[in-house]
Structures are given as C-alpha cells and as structure tokens.
C-alpha cells in the first residue's frame, strides 16, 4: 500500500488539526485537534449533536471540511486532488444503521467491494470473505439476506464488509446504538477482538463500560470542541470539567 512520502508508522496515523465544519449556519465542528497513533483504540463520547459522527465522516472524506487539516498516514484528506479510493482502502467505516446492501447475501455484501472496487480475483475474495464471516462468528449465515438477520448479526456483517478492504483504520459510528441490549454484546466482542489484533480503531460510542475497558484514550466532545480527554482510568475517575462530569453522571 502506498503511503505519503515522509510518513513512518511511528508518527500518528491520523492527525487532526483545527478542523471546522458547518452545515449552513450550523457550526458542527469548531476547531478540533488531536492525534491517533497506530494500533491505538480511541473512543469519542459526548452528547448527541456534538459533532462526533461528523468528525468520523470527515476523516473518511464522506463530508468535506471547511477549514483545518486531516492527515491519514501523512496524506491530506482536505485536498481536492485527493484519491478517495486510496483513502477508503485504508479507512473502513461501520455505521449506526448497518447500511448493508439489502439485495445481496451476507457473503456477497462482504465480497462486493474487493471484487468491484479492488478488482481482485473471485476465488481469493470469496475465501477471504468466508474467513471474515467466521471471524465475526457468523458461520452458516453466508447465504442469508440482511432482512433475515438480527440487528447484531447485520452489524457484524457490516464490520466484516469493511474489513474485507484490509483497512489500516476502522471507524465505528455508534455501531451499537440501534441494537437490542442482548445483541450489543456480540458486536462489542467483535470490536474488542479487532482491537486486540492491533487494528487502529476510532469509535463514537455511548457504551461507557466498553470505552473504559477497551479504549486507550477517551475524548469528550461538546458543541463542536473537545472539552476533555485522557486515558480511561484518569478520565472516568477524575474528570475536571463540569460539562464532562455532568455528562458522565447522566450516563453512568
């Protein structure tokens, strides 16, 4: 995989500097800055409407930013000449509402991007897809259509679908928010295994317990800015900002 000249794995894999984004008159991000190191698991928490999901979409160039800089493996995302395909090969994304392709089976969903976007051979892609389905513990469900799967199962197919592109970074956008409590666990287990494998993960989540256990670093955002951050132990024990404390007291 090509990387921008000058970037080495010991530098931050994602570098976000003073990012601003508005939708019309509504400023969603008002100067966000932070780094993510390779292999790190970063959790972004905060009240709804604080710009968390928008931030993830900016990293993936689904949403263009107005000002600032986002570098993924040293490559500027906020650049009109950006090769989006190169970026999206590196960055996988999983959505709150799964967004599987409803007309394709679980296996086909996983195979589609490698086949048509990367134009890899069918046999090799299928072998990898079956492997990934197994990895997310859905063996036997290869031929099922999304409409026949539970929310948690669909979400795990969606994770496998992103992994099929062999990304360096995975973005998770409130992936458990639409799920029944019973099925949340199975999805979180899959993400935890990914993290243990050394995948760089960035999660927007409301699962505080999970963030505390699996996260390497917690960021709390409110009204478009990062209010407070730190490693989970200190963040959850001794949050200093009143807004953070209020949020944590409501949610925990």
């Amino acid at each position: 995989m090509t990387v921008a000249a000058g970037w080495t794995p010991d530098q931050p894999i994602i570098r976000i500097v003073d990012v601003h984004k508005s939708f019309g008159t509504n400023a969603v991000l008002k100067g966000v800055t932070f780094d993510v190191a390779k292999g790190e698991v970063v959790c972004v928490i905060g009240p709804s409407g604080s710009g968390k999901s928008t931030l993830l979409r900016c990293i993936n160039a689904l949403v263009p930013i107005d000002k600032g800089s986002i570098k993924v493996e040293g490559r500027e995302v906020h650049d009109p000449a950006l090769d989006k395909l190169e970026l999206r090969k590196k960055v996988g994304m999983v959505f709150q509402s799964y967004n599987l392709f409803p007309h394709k089976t679980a296996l086909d969903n996983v195979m589609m991007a490698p086949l048509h976007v990367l134009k890899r051979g069918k046999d090799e892609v299928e072998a990898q897809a079956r492997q990934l389905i197994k990895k997310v513990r859905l063996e036997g469900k290869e031929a099922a259509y999304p409409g026949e799967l539970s929310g948690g199962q669909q979400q795990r197919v969606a994770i496998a679908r992103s992994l099929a592109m062999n990304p360096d970074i995975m973005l998770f956008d409130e992936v458990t928010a639409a799920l029944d409590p019973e099925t949340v666990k199975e999805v979180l287990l899959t993400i935890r295994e990914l993290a243990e494998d050394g995948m760089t993960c960035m999660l927007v989540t409301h699962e505080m317990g999970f963030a505390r256990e699996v996260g390497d670093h917690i960021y709390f955002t409110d009204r478009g800015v990062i209010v407070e951050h730190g490693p989970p132990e200190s963040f959850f024990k001794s949050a200093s900002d009143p807004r953070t404390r209020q949020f944590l007291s409501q949610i925990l």
Partner: protein
Amino acid sequence: MDSFWELLRGLHDSYGINLVHFYDGFERGRLLRGMWTTVKLAVICIVLSVVIGMIGAWLQGSRLKLLKALVQGYIQFFRNTPPLVQMYFFYFALGPQMPRIVNEHGIAQPMLGSFEWAVLSLSFFAGAFNVEIFRSGIEAVQKSTVEAADSLGFNRLQIYWYVVLPLAIRFCLPALNNNLVNLAKTTTQAYAIAVPETLFVASQIWSDRINVFEMMITLLTFYLLLVGMFVWIMARVERALHVPGFGR
C-alpha cells in the same frame, strides 16, 4: 392437425363462420408472421426503452444543469405528445433525411425501414416514462446505503450499477411492468406506417376475405393472450428479484 383445419373449414361451409386465417395455409402463414413481428417489435422496444430509462435516470443525477434540462425536455416532450404523431414524425419527417444505402440488388433504399422506425419511436416514447419510473425508484433508495458504498470506495458509476439500480428496480417494478405492458399494446400503432405486424396483417386478411368479425375476435384474443403472457413473465421477474426480508 389437418383434420382440425378440415373441421374449421366445415364450420365455414355449414355455418358461415369464416376462420379462413386458420385453415388456409397461406393466410395462416402471414398471420403467424404478423404475430411474430408483433412479438419481436414488443420485445426489442421493451429492452431498448428500459435501457433508455436507465441511462436517462443516471443522467438526471448529473451535476451538469444543461444535461439535466435536456433529459427533462425529452421526458416532457415525449410524454405530452401523441405517440402516433411521434411515429409519423420519425418515419415521414426524419426518415427521408437519412442517407440512403444501396442494397445487394443495386437499388438505393432508406437506411432504416418502417420496422426500425417503429422500434425507435416506440422505444423513445416508452423510454420517457421509464426515466421517470426509474427516477422514483432511485429516490426510494436510502441515502445511508449509498453512503456505505461510498465509504467502501465505490465510484459514482459503480454505486449506480451495483447498489442503486438493483434496489431501484425492485422499488419501481410494479410501475415499470405497467408501462411495459402498455408499450406492448402500443405496438399496434406501427400499423400506421405499414409495419407488417398483427393488426396490419389482420386488416389485409379481412379486406381480402371479408371476415371482419372473425378476424376481430382472433385479434382481440391474440392481444389478450400476449398481454397475459407479459403480465405472467413480469410476475416471474418480480418473484425472481424478490429478496427475503426486503421491501413489501
């Protein structure tokens, strides 16, 4: 079989029911050729009009304002003018402007015959409806599904071909079927530019043999069977495209 034809011939002799287009080999032959022409005409037009609909709906998503306006103009014009006049315009007004080609006998003949012009005009007519039908189907596709494809690195054409179109077709199949059945019925208009399709051949037979009533019943039965067959095929297609747990 021959005894059956003899039975029909007897029907004519003893009761005056003139089914000459069945028992007379010559008339039967030209009627069958006419029916085959109708089926060919209908199938080619259906395929072409669906292709026009897909391309038109794709172009309507374009960022170029001029392109969108052109597609919109095409749709509105073809939807709001009579298909028969369109066909005359294609055949009588555009036809003579086309270059002539010399055939194997050394005679100059028009590049496109009446059959080809009928195909073109009917396809453009039905295609205008198909563009709007596909467009409504495309609008029913969830934006988040498109976003997911985008995040997997699909480009615009790939998103359209692999994700949006397959879903849109499933959404708009009932309306599409309706329009395609209408198209099959509208092929009778090719009569007006002397395409030897079923109605045209039938009118030749009833003028030669003076059996208007019997011919009419045959004609109506044929078209009801044809439409019935199309409806059946479309229902099969609908079932084949059905995805468990998706849609209605």
